[in-house]
């Protein structure tokens, strides 16, 4: 069921109203195996979101294609659920109805829908808040609702665009644990955009580095899990950090000066 995700000669050119042409993706080629946890890292405005939106089917590429197994991505679909950076929980639906949305769209029968919803609400720890309005939840809780909604539709690829960017450190660490547990239990393929190197070290099997729309490096992260402070301070981890920093155009002196 799980399929290889492949990006083939992907270009994405935007023309701004001013006439300015932006090459958001520049001949991107790579493949992701089922069950991999991929972090996409890069500086601001260097094409991370664009890459995810192309894979989600929300942004047609200018040239090239994205494939899921044998099928070419042509539009958005439940096989590639996405968790956005901004708050995209439906404020007019209770928490439970939010998680149910995708299942209703897929016309899953009632009993199955209730069972799946209850399962994912439990998995993200929101069972007690199933009948709350989103406005009654904290930001981190709303992110968990978004995560549960994406998980519930049963896609084997999950796209996450800086999902925890706006949360405080502790909430983030907590959500990292929730996410890793879900990933280990389901073996879904996860694309996770971040500009936080520590976050990438905690989560990733593999880091894809984007600079000016080009794939400049593809770094395997072979650190043992769980990645606690000691492991992230190991020399292997520090080497990865240095490689990433170098590619982002920040030399070590620069980094220490900041």
């Amino acid at each position, binding site marked *: 069921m799980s399929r290889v995700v492949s990006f083939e000669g992907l270009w994405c050119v935007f023309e701004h109203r001013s006439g300015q042409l932006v090459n958001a993706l520049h001949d991107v080629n790579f493949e992701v195996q089922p069950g991999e946890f991929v972090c996409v890292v890069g500086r601001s405005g260097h094409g991370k979101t664009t890459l995810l939106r192309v894979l989600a089917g929300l942004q047609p590429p200018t040239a090239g294609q994205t494939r899921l197994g044998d099928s070419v991505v042509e539009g958005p679909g439940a096989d590639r659920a996405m968790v956005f950076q901004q708050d*995209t929980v439906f404020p007019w639906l209770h928490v439970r109805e939010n998680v149910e949305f995708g299942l209703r769209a897929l016309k899953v029968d009632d009993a199955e829908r209730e069972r799946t919803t209850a399962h994912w609400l439990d998995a993200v720890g929101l069972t007690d808040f199933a009948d709350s*309005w989103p406005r009654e939840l904290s930001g981190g809780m709303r992110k968990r609702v978004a995560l549960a909604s994406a998980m519930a539709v049963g896609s084997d690829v999950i796209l996450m665009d800086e999902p925890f960017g706006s949360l405080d450190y502790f909430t983030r660490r907590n959500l990292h644990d929730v996410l890793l547990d879900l990933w280990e239990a389901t073996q879904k393929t996860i694309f996770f955009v971040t500009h936080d190197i520590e976050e990438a070290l905690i989560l990733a099997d593999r880091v894809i580095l984007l600079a000016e729309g080009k794939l400049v490096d593809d770094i395997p992260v072979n650190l043992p899990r769980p990645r606690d402070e000691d492991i992230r301070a190991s020399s292997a981890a520090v080497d990865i950090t240095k490689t990433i920093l170098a590619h982002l155009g920040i030399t070590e002196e620069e980094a220490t000066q900041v």
Partner: protein
Amino acid sequence: MTSKDVLDVRAKAQREKRRRRIASIIYIAIGIALFFVAWILLAHEKSPWNYDIPPPFGAVGPFQDIFQGVWGIFQGEGAIAHFWRNLGTSQDMKIKFVHACPDLHPANVNNPFRQVISSLMGWKYTAETAIVTGGPAPVPFVQLPDYCYGYGIHLLVTIVRILIGAALGTIAGLAIGLSSLVFPKVAQVFTPIASFFGTAPIFIAAPFFVIWFGVEVPIMTTIGLVTFYTTLLMYFFSRRAAENIPVGIVESALTLGGTPRSIFRWVYLPGTVPEIAGGFRIALAGAWGLGVLVEVLGIQVGGGHLIDIWRFLIGQLQAPSALVALITFYAALAVVVDAILLVIIRYLTRWSEAGRRLGL
């Protein structure tokens, strides 16, 4: 891909932009044409409204008046006078406008609306003469001339008409507005029409409605105008409400497998409630004023007609106090209806803090 390809992309985008612009002009033309086709059909001799709605380009239509007037200017002598004399009120229009007794007007005898209203009024009249034995009405109400059939029927008729008009308009406006979200072509055709008619202030358009649609069948004119006005407002409000739903939320729904149907049901429908509800309150508030105003302009039944009569009676009877009583009646009615609406809206928007803050 090379820099030449990048330039191709640019050229393609420009072609696409030009194509879209041409398409939108074509849609505007289609929209206006459809409007006139609908008008011609309504005014056709087989249509039940054919007496009440003049054909757009016929001998008595408003456009004919304007065309004649403009043509007259080119003719030279006395042209401007001719233009003003005929603008919207040519001799034929005046015949439609001025009449002694609508119930006996031969043109109305076979009109189903007319008959409904006549029998309603006849029933009311019989009831009143049985109960009140012709004594004067209590102050502040002035006794009305005999042909007015008492107060109750006028007030009731106005309320019913306005509510029917507002309901029809709301249904039509929402149907068009919300369906245009699922079928973008609906919006491309309807938006130009709505903007064209929406720019004319409705209180300026109202007298024209009375002139064009006639006063013999008031139910058509009041309901028609209120419906028209509410349809326009509700169309704009529902479109704007949907446009204000963040793109990210719709995109999120799409990646969760949302189909047009499920997105309509679970995103657009609930998400537009606060703004649509707010819009409905505004539309209804306008409808009260509009409905009464139209009746002042010459319709023979309804609260507005009473105001019209009292205008003539001022000085002879206690007309001013009666007028104030009538206005108070409508104001109180509007407040009561609004309060009921508020309770319903509170319930529908309980998910939204913003809605509560805005007092929707």
